[in-house]
């Protein structure tokens, strides 16, 4: 658990909309810091629009960080983009997208889609590429016969497998999976999660798992980070987070998970989160503080002391 693979420090990314007087700056990711250890699954959850996707995309440099630093295995990956860095990134980090339809080029065969990463990596020999593609397809539960087909000929679950094969073909050390199962039905979701778990075990894969289905996140993640409006507000081991949520937003989030039980759902009491009501940051400024045991909380000094007492 000790070796940090991905280290994110004060990372920010802002979007600028409009021009002149109508210009607005959206701090989509605002001073976010967390570590992901080698071979662990780190879940990132939070309200829609809180910046989960932007965090993932900024780490992998689909977006430029506006501040902060990211290191991967000790090497800085947030600095000026060079050919060398681009290559390092594509060899080590890969992304799986939420929408398996949108993210696959409809005019490319599965072989071309999955093999693309190898090509970029300099595997120029076509038959060698084919061998590796087929091996990867088998690994994700598809067959050689599928290689010559096009994305539209596959079901949602199969397309997501293709996305996973494409990401895994270069044997990255880490995958950023942005809601990889959200668009899938339950039984296929189970297949894809089992597959990711197998890959994790066989290949020592590290995963940043972005999702909003908390039952799935809880099941799949070793640690979980909760985001709210661009800020990371709580990080803890997944059991701790569920048993001892400390941030009022985390509590609200947990109280809102519908469980597949009609007998209890009828009595569900949801907790509301209202930052104005729930915090007083007029005098004390909040910051990320360590509660021990890998649990950290974005809070003021007073809140911190209260949380420590409660955890005792």
């Amino acid at each position, binding site marked *: 658990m000790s070796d940090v693979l991905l280290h994110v420090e004060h990372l920010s990314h802002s979007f600028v909309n409009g021009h002149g007087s109508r210009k607005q700056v959206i701090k989509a990711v605002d001073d976010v810091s967390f570590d992901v250890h080698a071979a662990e699954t780190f879940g990132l959850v939070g309200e*829609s629009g809180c910046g989960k996707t932007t965090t993932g995309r900024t780490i992998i440099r689909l977006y430029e960080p506006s501040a902060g630093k990211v290191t991967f295995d000790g090497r800085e990956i947030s600095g000026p983009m060079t050919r060398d860095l681009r290559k390092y990134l594509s060899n080590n980090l890969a992304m799986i997208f939420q929408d398996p339809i949108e993210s696959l080029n409809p005019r490319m065969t599965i072989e071309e889609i999955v093999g693309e990463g190898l090509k970029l990596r300099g595997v120029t020999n076509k038959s060698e590429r084919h061998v590796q593609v087929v091996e990867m397809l088998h690994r994700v539960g598809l067959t050689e016969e599928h290689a010559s087909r096009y994305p539209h000929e596959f079901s949602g679950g199969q397309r997501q497998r293709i996305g996973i094969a494409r990401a895994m073909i270069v044997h990255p050390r880490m995958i950023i999976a942005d809601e990889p199962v959200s668009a899938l039905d339950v039984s296929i979701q189970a297949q894809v999660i089992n597959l990711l778990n197998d890959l994790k075990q066989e290949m020592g894969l590290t995963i940043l798992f972005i999702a909003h*289905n908390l039952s799935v996140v809880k099941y799949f993640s070793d640690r979980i980070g909760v985001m709210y409006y661009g800020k990371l507000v709580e990080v803890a081991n997944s059991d701790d987070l569920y048993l001892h949520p400390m941030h009022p937003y985390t509590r609200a*989030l947990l109280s809102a998970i519908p469980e*597949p039980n009609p007998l*209890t*759902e009828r009595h569900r009491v949801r907790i509301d989160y209202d930052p104005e009501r729930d915090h007083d940051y007029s005098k004390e400024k909040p910051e990320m503080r360590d509660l021990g045991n890998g649990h950290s909380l974005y809070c003021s000094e007073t809140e911190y002391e209260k949380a420590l007492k409660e955890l005792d």
Partner: protein
Amino acid sequence: MANDTILSVNDLRISFRTVNGIVQAVRGVSFDLHRGETVAIVGESGSGKSVTMKALMGILPPNAFIEEGSILYNGMDLARADEKTMHQIRGKRIGLIFQDPLSALNPIMRVGRQITEVLRKRGLNKAEARARALELIKAVGIPNPERSFSAYPFQFSGGMRQRIVIAIALAGDPEILICDEPTTALDVTVQAKILDLINQIREERGLSVIFITHDLGVVANMADRVNVMYAGKIVEAGTSEEIFLRPVHPYTWALLESMPDLQTRGRLQAIPGAPPNMLAPPQGDAFAPRSRYALKIDYEKEPPTFKLSPTHTAATWLLHPMAPKMEMPASLKERIARMRKEAEKYV
């Protein structure tokens, strides 16, 4: 009960002409919708849920045709209604919230305008429409209603866009609201707000809701009754309690087993194999090849629908008096016991 029936779907069969042949997407679906209730439709991807809903809205693609059956609404058969009639019904009597918010929004029209357009069609004047639109934007939980009113869809996250779509659907003030995975792209707190919102409107206006989702938690939370679909048919139907606590169809068992809850550890129970090819649907029970509980007759003859209670029906040979006794999987049994235990907290 019958007086309360607002919509009645009877033996609906829908197929698609494709280059490879005829795809039999919906193969004899029947269900009723009562005033003020929520009926959930669950089932595997490709089982025909969306196609059935598109038929209700009269928005089937050109290569689709209704082979048989009727959709009775207000004394009309929507399966045979012309485009002019459907135009009167769509968005006004029957509203639809789609899976994919982007396809439902006009990317180059300001959000406020997309809502006021619907309101203006209902006869509100400009100022009324604007005020009502702002109310709706607020009601679906979009922050900064004034600013959002004049923003474009791309300026919102996926979840926010879905709320806009819901605001547009509610602007039509429909009698029936069809929700096709409306909260799939949303996080739970937003989802909770949207579910509350739908429930609130349902109570206030006696709205009837058809709710399609893969999230069984949402079903447990929302649905009065549940229809379980597999390969173009409803294989089991019942009240929420019947489906979650006393399921009898092997597909329902497999579905309930495959979803992790907060207590799940170990490997998930995925359903083995792939859904059937609807170009040539299998004979007999379409789920048989993937079922641990298949009998010989399942491969030969389609099971009839057995009635377990006035509200609970299922199409599986396991219910035939001569079938060998089979029980649901042990892990599901445990889970149901756990569900009952959890519920004791509330009595």
